């Protein structure tokens, strides 16, 4: 199974985080789920652990609409850091309301593997972790 996988959830919606984290745990999709409520915290983590492949997440779910810096701000920061990271991360962007503009923008970034509508279903998660 994919028990070695590390997943990040970057979202300030507590209920969403709680439910998604629990779902992932119940289905054993990965080993650990870390949660960050702001982009700043998440980026700080990346900077601190960029040389350690075990501590870098394999999957990151990030909501576009965050209060201070947005999901796109995270993408920009990540793009700058990506060359220094010890491991590649698959990033999935989430939103409660998708727009075509957002979808198109996402395709510009090779490390953004998907753009999903909330809520994430079991099937979504299964697909994501299978790859």
């Amino acid at each position: 199974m994919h028990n070695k996988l590390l997943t990040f959830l970057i979202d300030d919606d507590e209920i969403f985080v709680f439910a998604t984290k629990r779902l992932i745990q119940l289905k054993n999709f990965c080993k650990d789920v870390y949660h960050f409520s702001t982009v700043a915290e998440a980026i700080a983590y990346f900077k601190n652990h960029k040389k350690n492949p075990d501590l870098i997440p394999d999957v990151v779910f990030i909501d576009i609409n965050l209060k201070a810096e947005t999901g796109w701000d995270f993408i920009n920061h990540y793009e700058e850091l990506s060359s220094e990271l010890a491991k590649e991360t698959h990033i999935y962007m989430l939103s409660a309301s998708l727009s075509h503009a957002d979808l198109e923008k996402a395709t510009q970034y090779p490390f953004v593997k998907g753009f999903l509508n909330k809520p994430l279903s079991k099937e979504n998660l299964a697909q994501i972790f299978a790859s």
Partner: protein
Amino acid sequence: MRSMNKNLEHPDFLENEHFKLLEQALHAGLFQISENNDNLICSPAFCELLGYPNNTINLSKSFFFDQLVFPADKEILLKAIQNNFQSGKHCLLEIQLLNKAGAYKWFKIAGNTKQTTGGPAYMLCSITDINERVEQKIALQKSEHLLEEAGKMARVGVWELYTNPPLLTWSKEVCHIHEVPDNFTPDLNTAINFYSPPAIPIIQQAVNDALSLGTPFDLELKICTATQKEIWVRALGKPILDKKSKKIIGVRGVFQDINEQKEKELAINESTKIITSQNKRLVNFAHIVSHNLRAHAANLSLTLELESDETDPVEKTELQENLRKISASLNETITHLTDLVVAQTETHEIKKRVPLDKAMQLVEDVLQAEIRESSATLKVNFTKCKEIDFVPAYLESILLNFTSNALKYRNPNVPLVITIESDIEAGKPILQVSDNGLGIDLTKHGEQIFGMYKTFHGNANARGIGLFMTKNQVESLGGKISVESEPNKGTAFKIRF
């Protein structure tokens, strides 16, 4: 004696070739009448002019006056002839005569008496065909009249400016538009001074350019009429070129009162602006609805999906708690949106004269605890503008919002000072609230500061909706709100009512 007799029956013009040539050249016909009999002796040319071939009519003085002269002209003619016989006053009239075809034509009739010593007086007269000229004159008058009427209806007049010698003429309609008498003759300076101060240099430049460079102009400007009415006019001008030298000798143009159209145009532009801004707000609103409500709905379905898989009872209880939280959030979002709609639509809310110090007192009462806790100093100064026409509830809410934000985002290392003052700028009241708190990085967040659910400092008790509501409340009543801030220096909000 013999010459006199000869003359009585047989005037010179009947035989003399010179007279005949003259008649031909002038389109004239000669005739002679006597004072004391009914004889009228006329030349062949006379008959021809009236459409009768040579000498075919039996002409008598009475036939001429009763049948041929236009009835309305008869009396004037008789009088003129009488005057001439009696006092030698020259007879010269324009009358209509009936021709053979039965149509009245215009003729000039002239005559002068020849006194013969001791005998009756004879009058030598001529008629000249002026029909074409008169008909042209009548047509021209009709044209001019129609033009004048058209000008009156369209409120358009014409004007001409010559430079050498300087002469400016205005048509009647231009005078009407300026509300001056019909015979007003302005000089260029007076004419230009009718325009509104900002328009004066524009029209001056335009006239100068037309005179020196030959550039035509078409301008919409404001003038102030003689009765102090301000109206919009359209002034067009084209250079006048001398026919021979092709040099510019003046400018002529058209002047139109477009006040009604211009005001309609400005009103439409204003409406368009309002509609565009309303549209923007509507789009904003729709986006908020779709995003925020969906976020909660998504959580609801996610939580329910989880519930079916969850085995741990402790977790299950937590899930139920979450369901309650989601429900509360949904309600809250809907309440916010409702408030937003109310703020947008209740623009007919009654504005009242609100004394600012009373409103501020209320705010200070509500925030008593926080003010004390933070040892904040409030500097309140409403001397420059004591009252504002606004919805009382909104004004209190605005003051409350700004003050509580200042308290929330104070700099922990600097004793908080909040300055709240009113003023008058350009005749309109303004309110300024500034603090020396944490400030906001406007280069990063400038656009989002008034957005819904936007916070910047990670405060736990920051909901992010206050400024959004404030902006909506201010704008829905026609005001404007702006902000200046520097991180760690402070923030200043300014509202223009």
